[in-house]
């Protein structure tokens, strides 16, 4: 098992968002996390990334307890996060953004820039350009590429389609699937774009009020009442 979340409760101050939430992700699997706004998807990603510490429960990554681990140590053991809004460093060039992934994580001395460019050729054409001048779709490519530069075994993606033109969303989804196949990388994707998630994975979870209310294959999830009621499918 790549990741096991056992009964975690977490939130912001006195506001509890996740309530006794549990889930498991197998190695090399892509898990799609679906749900309406405010149901705890991003809070869960922030818990897994180490930005929010659960008040109860445990998180285990590759048989190692990581519940108390700060974000930088999680990156150093192979968890990379592509945040909502992409979080590129606007004043750094594309190359520097990518190198920052390798330098900060200290997981590998080998630069993976060539591999990243093979996934995202457009980045190769913009290496000297400031990241802040890229389009939203290109910034998303950069954020994913920078995550790859940390040499991760698991990638957390929070709303990777947010604010990106539909054509690029499809293209990025295709590349994520290719990365998953080629590298055997475990991925957890938080999305509101259901077709994108369904194009990527057969294992989905729907969150409702901080709990897992439905889990199953693409077909099972799309047939569920929760999905019909909340996501209007």
């Amino acid at each position, binding site marked *: 098992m790549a990741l096991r979340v056992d009964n975690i409760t977490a939130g912001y101050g006195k506001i509890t968002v996740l309530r006794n939430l549990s889930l498991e992700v197998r190695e090399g699997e892509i898990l799609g996390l679906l749900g309406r706004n405010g149901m705890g998807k991003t809070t869960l990603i922030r818990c897994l990334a180490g930005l929010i510490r659960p008040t109860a429960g445990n998180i285990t990554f590759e048989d190692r307890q990581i519940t108390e681990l700060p974000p930088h140590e999680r*990156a150093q053991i192979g968890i990379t996060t592509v945040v909502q809004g992409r*979080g590129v460093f606007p004043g750094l060039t594309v190359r520097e953004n990518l190198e920052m992934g390798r330098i900060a994580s200290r997981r590998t001395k080998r630069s993976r820039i060539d591999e990243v460019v093979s996934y995202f050729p457009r980045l190769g054409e913009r290496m000297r350009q400031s990241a802040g001048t890229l389009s939203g779709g290109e910034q998303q490519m950069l954020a994913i590429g920078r995550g790859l530069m940390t040499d991760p075994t698991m990638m957390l993606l929070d709303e990777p389609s947010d604010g990106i033109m539909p054509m690029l969303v499809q293209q990025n989804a295709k590349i994520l699937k290719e990365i998953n196949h080629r590298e055997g990388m475990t991925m957890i994707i938080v999305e509101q774009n259901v077709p994108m998630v369904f194009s990527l994975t057969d294992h989905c979870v729907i969150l409702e009020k901080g709990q897992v209310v439905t889990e199953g294959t693409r077909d099972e999830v799309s047939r569920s009442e929760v999905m019909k009621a909340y996501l209007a499918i």
Partner: protein
Amino acid sequence: MSTALSVVVDATLITLILALAAFGLAIIYGLVGVINMGHGAMLTLGAYLTWAATTAGLPFVISIFLAAAGVAVIGLLLEHIVIRSFYDRPFDTLLLTWGFFLVSTEVIKIVFGTDLRNVANPVPGAFDLGGIQIPAYRTMIAGCSLLLIAGSALVFFYTALGIKIRALIQNREMASLLGLDVSRMYKLVFVTGSFMAGLAGALISPMLSVDPYIGNIFLVRSFFVVIIGGIGHLLGGTLIGSFLIGGSETLFALFSGQVFAQTAVFAVAIVVLRFRPHGVLRSG
């Protein structure tokens, strides 16, 4: 003609000396957001430690590096014991560093007394440039300042450490999510800023009589330099801010007394901030 040349030379020297004095503050304030009211005390400590080392018979060059290292250690202790729990709380760190200034000034008085001390000028004399006598030691300090800023520019823009620092300034949470140990980087930045402040105090010490308030001469100007240049614009901002403060003071002093010149400089600073509240190099 010779007056114009003299003004240009004076303004250049003062700009670079001021940049040297402000650089430690620019690092700490600009990179980790701590308004270091203890900056003046760090300059003073650098000057006193240089005096102590040269009085003990150590060569000047070794003395200034020992002094800077001594202030860096004090900065490390200050950061580790006090400041590190208060990042993101600028008002608290302002008060804490002000407290550091008060305590260290009193400790200096107890240890060294209040008598004026003098550090022998290691490069006495002057050289002639088109009929203008230029003090050799001031020129040397200006050169050191330029070297330090150029060296920092190399680190900042061409090394892995520079990438980490620039990424940290732009998005701390993201830098941490990529694996950067933010608290360790903050410590490194604070200690580097303290080292630079100590080095500036050490280099300035032969130019002035050393007393417990020597650093204060540069404290207010250093703040103006950093704010006018643009917080976070470590290199260009420090140089431009120093030029506006130091250069305008030289110009005003040419036509008036020193007191009026200093007052006019602060007026210039206020006018600049009225129209560029985020500094000359920052937009928005």
